[in-house]
């Protein structure tokens, strides 16, 4: 773990991993979306609207994945005090929030023709909206603490506390009667026909790679910011 916590080593790793993830992700996303939008057969009940699956599901997965990344990085920061963990958590917030918003928007567009409503206050939709608000709160808190040159401790605690919403989102359709259907994919089982499942899994993998690439790029940018600031401060000291 300490080997990866070294910023120099991290930058060396990230400099080739970032473009690899971004390009790989883009290629997979392009393949899966062309496949999903043009070549997948219509669903028996939903017809053509099933195609929104290939955006909605990866977005939901990464919306929750983003907060999981924040929570794990925050835990690592709180216990081992690795500065790179704080950076990883900060860098995951905006992409996670974007995917959560995409999930809510596509879900709403999908809900109108299939359920007959843009929005209902059932367990799944409500807990996902709470996640969006948690992201907004986290981003504001992390920005404020960074501006004051404060430690990452308080955003880290917020990131851990907010993680309680993740299992609630996941279980919401099992614990409570909801309009949203129960999970289609569970461990070792899928209620999604292979004709939909294969492009869906490619889309999930592709968007995940893109997410990883964006997080790495943001971490590099944050690191460069810190270094530039430190250099300026040193120059100012020398001049004085």
């Amino acid at each position: 773990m300490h080997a990866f916590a070294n910023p120099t080593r991290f930058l060396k790793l990230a400099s080739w991993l970032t473009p690899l993830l971004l390009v790989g992700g883009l290629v997979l996303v392009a393949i899966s979306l062309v496949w999903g939008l043009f070549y997948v057969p219509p669903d028996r009940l939903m017809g053509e609207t099933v195609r929104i699956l290939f955006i909605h599901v990866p977005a939901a997965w990464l919306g929750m994945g983003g907060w999981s990344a924040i929570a794990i990085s925050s835990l690592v920061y709180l216990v081992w005090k690795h500065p790179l963990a704080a950076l990883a958590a900060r860098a995951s917030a905006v992409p996670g929030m974007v995917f959560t918003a995409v999930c809510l928007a596509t879900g709403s567009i999908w809900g109108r023709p299939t359920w007959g409503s843009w929005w209902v206050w059932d367990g799944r939709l409500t807990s996902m909206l709470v996640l969006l608000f948690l992201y907004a709160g986290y981003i504001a808190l992390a920005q404020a603490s960074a501006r004051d040159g404060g430690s990452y401790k308080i955003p880290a605690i917020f990131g851990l506390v907010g993680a309680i919403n993740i299992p609630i989102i996941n279980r919401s359709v099992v614990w409570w009667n909801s309009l949203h259907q129960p999970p289609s994919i569970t461990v070792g089982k899928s209620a999604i026909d292979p004709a939909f499942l294969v492009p869906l899994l490619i889309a999930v993998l592709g968007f995940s790679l893109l997410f990883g690439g964006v997080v790495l790029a943001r971490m590099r940018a944050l690191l460069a910011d810190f270094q530039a600031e430190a250099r300026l401060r040193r120059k100012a000291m020398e001049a004085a």
Partner: protein
Amino acid sequence: MSESKGLKAKHQRLVLVSLALIALVGAGLLASWGLRNQANYFYLPDQFVAAPPPVGQAIRLGGMVAEGSIKTLEDGVTVSFIVTDQKEARVPVLYTGILPDLFVENSGVVADGSMDAKGVFVAEELLAKHDENYVPKELEEMSQHQAAKMAQETTVGLD
């Protein structure tokens, strides 16, 4: 700070954070458990039969549309159907308005409305509930064997 001391502080933090997480998860589970009957989006037919809601009280009913129960009334815009839990409980429903595309027999439905004096649920809004299965149109009529074969053909050249 000596090495052993640093290690100690690290372990202390790990224990503290773990305890905090356990307390947090416990609190979350307790809260969800407390909400188990309050956070439902709708009530099931057997709950309606066991404890009928007061006449006129706004409530949501959710279940399956019973097979062969959908009937269009004489005015042409009102439908009557029965919501069931696939067991004993059956609740008759009346709805006037445009039906969602996914509203079919043996499929999930959530109705927003209230009971009338005759024990009929009068729905003001009707939502179709989709199940977790995604099946292509062409595959629905096929036998299992044909479907598996076609699925195999569609996924050829992937690996």
